């Protein structure tokens, strides 16, 4: 199905990463590659180390071993905000929105990296600062339109139902115009209709902006339908890596994770 898709070179290369916390080994010697413009799913049973892997990629956890190559740059560890500046954005498994702020402001924080006007202009709210603010506001309004959350633009996100919060979180990540977008269970706690919406947003993002996407999800329907390639982790180790159809049929994967073969 991806003949028509324009998948490029390797964008992110995770090489032989190991991460442990005291005695707990969260990741052991995992390598994986995500290529430009593809959708890569990471799946695996609970506690397999999926979230930890995302944390390693965007610099929140520092692996004991291994290296990461992103956009041609090799690194062992870095501060999260540097990863963000390099073009990695993400959403979180436990929604991590700024609960005291409105939807609009939350998404605007995603633009923070791109806003540079110094604070004297800010303080007076004239001239360049104002202009800049409006430009970014316009961009953010596009995202709001895109995600169909116009109605909650001014609502404090703490009051939103879970599903909408996930959508706002996606908006915040998109606002940074990332090269690589990491999504941690974006569809947990949603019903089918909402999942369909979410899938649509992910696919459109991938299509229209060419954003590379790393996706963790437990809904096999979603994973199999959306992803170009699937990495399976179990107990911190990689047990399979390939196109969905191959992975789905892998006996190891069925034993460790799926329980039954999924169609």
């Amino acid at each position, binding site marked *: 199905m991806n003949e028509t898709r324009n998948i490029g070179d390797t964008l992110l290369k995770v090489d032989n990463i190991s991460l442990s916390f005291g005695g707990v080994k969260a990741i052991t010697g995992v390598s994986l590659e995500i290529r430009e413009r593809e959708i890569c799913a990471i799946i695996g049973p609970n506690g397999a180390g999926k979230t930890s892997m995302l944390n390693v990629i965007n610099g929140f956890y520092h692996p004991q071993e291994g290296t990461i190559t992103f956009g041609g740059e090799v690194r062992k560890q870095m501060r999260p905000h540097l990863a963000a500046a390099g073009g990695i954005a993400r959403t979180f498994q436990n929604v991590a929105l700024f609960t005291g702020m409105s939807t609009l402001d939350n998404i605007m924080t995603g633009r923070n990296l791109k806003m540079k006007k110094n604070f004297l202009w800010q303080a007076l709210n004239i001239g360049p600062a104002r202009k800049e603010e409006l430009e970014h506001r316009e961009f953010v309004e596009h995202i709001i339109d895109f995600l169909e959350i116009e109605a909650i633009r001014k609502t404090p996100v703490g009051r939103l139902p879970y599903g909408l919060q996930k959508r706002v979180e996606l908006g915040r990540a998109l606002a940074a115009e990332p090269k690589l977008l990491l999504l941690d269970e974006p569809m947990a*706690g949603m019903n089918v209709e909402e999942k*369909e919406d979410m899938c649509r947003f992910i696919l459109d993002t991938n299509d229209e902006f060419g954003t590379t996407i790393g996706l963790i999800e437990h809904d096999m329907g979603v994973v199999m339908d959306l992803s170009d390639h699937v990495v399976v982790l179990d107990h911190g180790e990689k047990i399979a890596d390939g196109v969905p159809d191959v992975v789905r049929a892998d006996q190891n994967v069925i034993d460790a994770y799926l329980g039954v073969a999924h169609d």
Partner: protein
Amino acid sequence: MSEDGNMLLSVKNIEVVYDHVILVLKGVSLEVPEGGIVALLGANGAGKSTTLKSISNLLRAERGDVTKGTIEYMGEQVDSLTPNALVSKGVIQVMEGRHCFEHLTVEENLLTGSYTRKDGRAAVQKDLDMVYSYFPRLVDRQASLAGYISGGEQQMVAIGRALMAKPKLILLDEPSMGLAPQLVEEIFEIVHRLNKDEGVSFLLAEQNTSVALRYASYGYILENGRIVMDGDADKLASNEDVKEFYLGVAGGERKSFRDVKHYRRRKRWLA
């Protein structure tokens, strides 16, 4: 469900307001029969969690208030009981979003669930072993602080913790959230088993409609703070609207999520 003598829980026409101004439930009534598994379905923000919290009386902690209606458990009005009194009476809620005690270890978390029990250490230990057998993953994590374990593991802890209270009625809020597919089935198997073997009743708010309706005996559909449909689970499962909007099957075929995109998009353009 008809007016019936052996209802374990009946919620009558409740209205809930948050923060004095935000009206969320607009007259919700539902019933859970003794030994039943009842599913509460509905879109995001419909008010499922709010309904459960008003039953378990955890609402007040979020500055919400039941302004109208009554809630009866075993024929007795329970609106004014404290949550812990309700737990002692056998009603326990597994909250959405896990709410584990971060600074307690996994085992300590589980043990907090037995706080209201008076039947001795041995019985508690037995149930602890049972929980571990349900969730072997937790055995490895026994001594980890709950704040550090993975999302799915936390979900197991939250459910296990509720089981430790030996309840008669469990209010399960999105039990399948964040769990691997295999485990989702297992959880519902556990629900089924507890229901059959020990007569525990369940009221579950669940987004995974297909599984929920498979295990439940009765279902309510909540939209925008109102019950819009209810009926036996199998009836609901065969209802066309439910199929379309909650089960994601149209005309008997599951749509691919990739195709959904185009279909949706067209719809948007038309609108």
